């Protein structure tokens, strides 16, 4: 243990602790801007660049960055001496002097770390006037870049390169012109970006924001010739409440359904329903591949899940040689869209093109997935618009509603009923667990002795287990972060030395609960943990917890699809992948 004083208070912390952590452990909150950590989720950005966290260390010539300086025995630290406050204010004033300061029109207004820092330091005017840097605006279908607002914290870069290993963003230029951009300042859409949007989730300011599609949805609702239906993803219901002042981890499923109805959606459905459908298709596909393998036929194993579109784009760009490994099952968003346009539209008595399908997703990648050409018929996308959790919250507020005041309502039928297996799709390991619940029972014909697979739960970036499938040892792995996914793909290239059969991949920290479309967590990993607890609470409270027991799912197979992985489901519920490695040529 190391003894030191911070603001004259004697404290003791373990060796290797930074001044910042030591202070926070002792109730002293030193402000930061560039530093960002997701505790226990293997993400830390520590460039030591913003210099907002500087403190005075007795005997040291210069001020020290608290986030990047380890404690030492006998250290005397002052976090708010006149020298420190003056330096800290001056540094933030400098940052503001090269910033557009148009908070009123900014996507980040009210949620911006630079804004709250300015308020906290009591900065009333910026003494420095001078040139401000301006850059070209750029956008994909998911991410909008306005680098005029960039403060060079480098969080996006660390996220993109270290956590995701997508390698789309890095620092370019030097001095005053330095900024974060794709290689050769090409468009993000032409880069190796996979649209995971996690750079947006971690950006402290409005430099990286989501592409706002609210107006398009409002117009569709206002159009009397259109019938507008909505689906809501599993992870949304455990995070939306945060936008309305509720505690993280509050489950707002019923209130959300009620709010969506009041926003004017004609039918309110549930992506959980199509998550159950996904399990039927993906689980059947897995069993099919296993059967072939056991019979000695050539087959691609391990099978990877394919419900995370950032992950899909990632393997299309980075592993074009392995495109036959992931499941061909569409994501739950994609499946819902296909069912809505093919099966539901005639039922509702509307033409395909008069049915507008809207998704509410925790995700920004889904905005790009929605627009994939193969998920459309004659140019009419199966899903017409995708809104994030944050956009739904905006829309609810815009329409003078408060989620707190909403009654509890149910989803509409027939695409509304779901099981506990579906809701856990929102957390890392959930798709695996849901698939295991169904695959086990379908394969063995026996009832699972224990429905909870604890080995797939929790925040470890890589989880491995061997599941006893009635004598057959099924080797599984669950990973989140595309960096971990890359390691798995590299193993496959090396001949799958660990003998995996099935691997779940989610791009985001903790899975979709930590998605880029969720309310900003500002690095507070407890918020993501609370969302996960809520997911498993929701699962435990469901009367039915296995996808193959969902009566609405059984009914649609009986009435429409026939059987999982049958002819019609292959046509509508499965997809194929493309070699997109040319997008990486520029950076090679």
């Amino acid at each position: 243990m190391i003894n030191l004083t911070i603001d004259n208070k004697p404290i003791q912390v373990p060796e290797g602790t930074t001044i910042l952590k030591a202070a926070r452990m002792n109730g002293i909150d030193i402000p930061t801007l560039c530093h960002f950590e997701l505790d226990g989720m293997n993400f830390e950005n520590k460039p030591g660049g913003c210099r907002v966290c500087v403190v005075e260390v007795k005997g040291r010539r210069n001020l020290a960055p608290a986030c990047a300086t380890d404690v030492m025995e006998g250290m005397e630290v002052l976090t708010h001496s006149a020298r420190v406050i003056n330096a800290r204010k001056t540094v933030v004033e400098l940052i503001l002097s090269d910033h557009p300061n148009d908070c009123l029109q900014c996507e980040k207004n009210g949620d911006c770390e630079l804004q709250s820092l300015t308020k906290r330091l009591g900065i009333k005017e910026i003494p420095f006037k001078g040139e401000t840097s301006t850059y070209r605006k750029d956008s994909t279908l998911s991410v909008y870049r306005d680098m005029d607002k960039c403060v060079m914290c480098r969080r996006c870069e660390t996220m993109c390169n270290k956590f995701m290993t997508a390698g789309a963003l890095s620092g370019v230029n030097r001095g005053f012109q330095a900024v974060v951009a794709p290689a050769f300042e090409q468009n993000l859409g032409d880069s190796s970006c996979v649209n995971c949007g996690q750079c947006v989730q971690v950006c402290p300011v409005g430099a990286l924001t989501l592409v706002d599609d609210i107006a398009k949805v409002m117009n569709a609702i206002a159009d009397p010739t259109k019938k507008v239906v909505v689906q809501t993803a599993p992870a949304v219901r455990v995070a939306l409440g945060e936008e309305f002042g509720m505690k993280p981890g509050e489950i707002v499923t019923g209130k959300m359904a009620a709010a969506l109805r009041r926003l004017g959606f004609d039918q309110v459905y549930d992506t959980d329903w199509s998550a159950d459908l996904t399990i039927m298709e993906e689980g059947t596909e897995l069993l099919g591949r296993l059967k072939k393998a056991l019979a000695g036929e050539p087959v691609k194993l391990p099978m990877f899940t394919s419900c995370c579109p950032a992950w899909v784009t990632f393997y299309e760009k980075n592993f074009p040689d392995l495109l036959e490994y992931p499941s061909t099952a569409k994501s739950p968003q994609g499946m819902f869209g296909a069912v809505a346009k093919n099966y539901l539209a005639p039922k509702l008595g509307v033409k395909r093109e008069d049915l507008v399908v809207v998704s509410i997703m925790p995700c920004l990648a889904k905005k790009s997935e929605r627009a994939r050409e193969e998920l459309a018929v004659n140019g009419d996308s199966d899903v017409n618009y995708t809104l994030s959790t944050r956009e739904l919250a905006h829309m609810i507020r815009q329409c003078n509603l408060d989620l707190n005041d909403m009654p509890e309502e149910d989803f509409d039928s027939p695409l509304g009923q779901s099981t506990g297996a579906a809701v856990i799709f929102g957390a890392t390991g959930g798709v695996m667990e849901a698939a295991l619940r169904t695959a086990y029972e379908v394969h063995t014909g026996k009832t699972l002795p224990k429905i909870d697979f604890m080995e797939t739960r929790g925040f470890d970036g890589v989880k491995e287990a061997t599941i006893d499938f009635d004598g057959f040892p099924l080797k599984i792995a669950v990973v989140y972060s595309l960096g971990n996914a890359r390691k798995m793909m590299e193993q496959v290239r090396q001949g799958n030395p660990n003998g995996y059969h099935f691997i779940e991949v989610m791009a985001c920290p903790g899975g979709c609960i930590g998605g880029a479309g969720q309310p900003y967590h500002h690095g507070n990993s407890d918020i993501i943990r609370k969302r996960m607890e809520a997911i498993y609470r929701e699962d435990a409270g469901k009367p039915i917890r296995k996808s193959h027991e969902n009566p609405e799912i059984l009914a649609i197979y009986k009435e429409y699809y026939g059987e999982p992985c049958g002819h019609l489901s292959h046509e509508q519920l499965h997809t194929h992948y493309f070699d997109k490695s040319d997008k990486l040529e520029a950076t090679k």
Partner: protein
Amino acid sequence: MPPGRELEGQRGEPTLKPPFPAVSGYMGKPSNVNNVETFANVPVIITKGAAWFSSIGTEKSKGTKVFALAGQINNVGLIEVPMGITLREIIYEIGGGIKNGRQFKAVQTGGPSGGCLTAKHLDTAIDYDSLVAAGSMMGSGGMVVMDETSCMPAIAKFYLEFTCEESCGKCSPCRIGNKRLCEILEKITDGRGTMEDLQELRNLAAVIKDTALCGLGQTSPNPVLSTLDNFWDEYVEHVVDKKCRAGVCKKLMSYVIDREKCIGCGKCAKGCPVEAISRTDYTAPGHKLASMVIDSTKCIKCGACINNCKFGAISIQ
């Protein structure tokens, strides 16, 4: 640009220290990062011995030092001198004194991030510590000698422009702060400066020094701080009197024709590229033609007229 991780294919910017390169450098391996000069000393120390090397120099700074002597001095070039030599010896004995018999004003040591020393430092024995104590540094071994034709705020701006170019952009005080320092200096040398700007200049320079991440940013304000300390009057003149005594800051100069001396030949007007010179209706006693006058709002301060006037009637004020 400060040394970074270019050899590893990374962007050129410094990483956090510790760990220092000696512990974890290139590819995470212990690495020796030194100047060429340091390496060049090694063979001599090996062949002639440490005792011989230590016999040269001062208590704390052993051996010799190579300086790049430049500026308004008669002998310029690379010199190798023992540590502990005085500036006076370097400038007047080795350098042969100031050019054209002009007055010594300042010497900038240590390259762009060094400081400007004045006549009062001429007899200081120079080594690593004494230079730092005097507000400068050994740095790159640059030594630029200046006479009264050098304007100190303009010199500070010149060096700041260089560090702005060299900043890697990683930390905010250096990336934005040096740019702002430069802009304030530009204001001052343009005659738009205020006394508040001088305060801001000092505060900002001190904060950059105190907060920047690497050596470049921690030293880049030195030219500003040392000229503020040693040449405060010159800054005040620029700001209050709108005058540049060295005649360097063009925006602060005005070309004036002495109407008593002007014989009205009009050669100045013919050579003026912007037609700023016209004839008055005043003829000085003893002259035949009316004198000329310069419209300061049109004048671009090119200096052509002063060279064209054979009668010394035009001066800079």
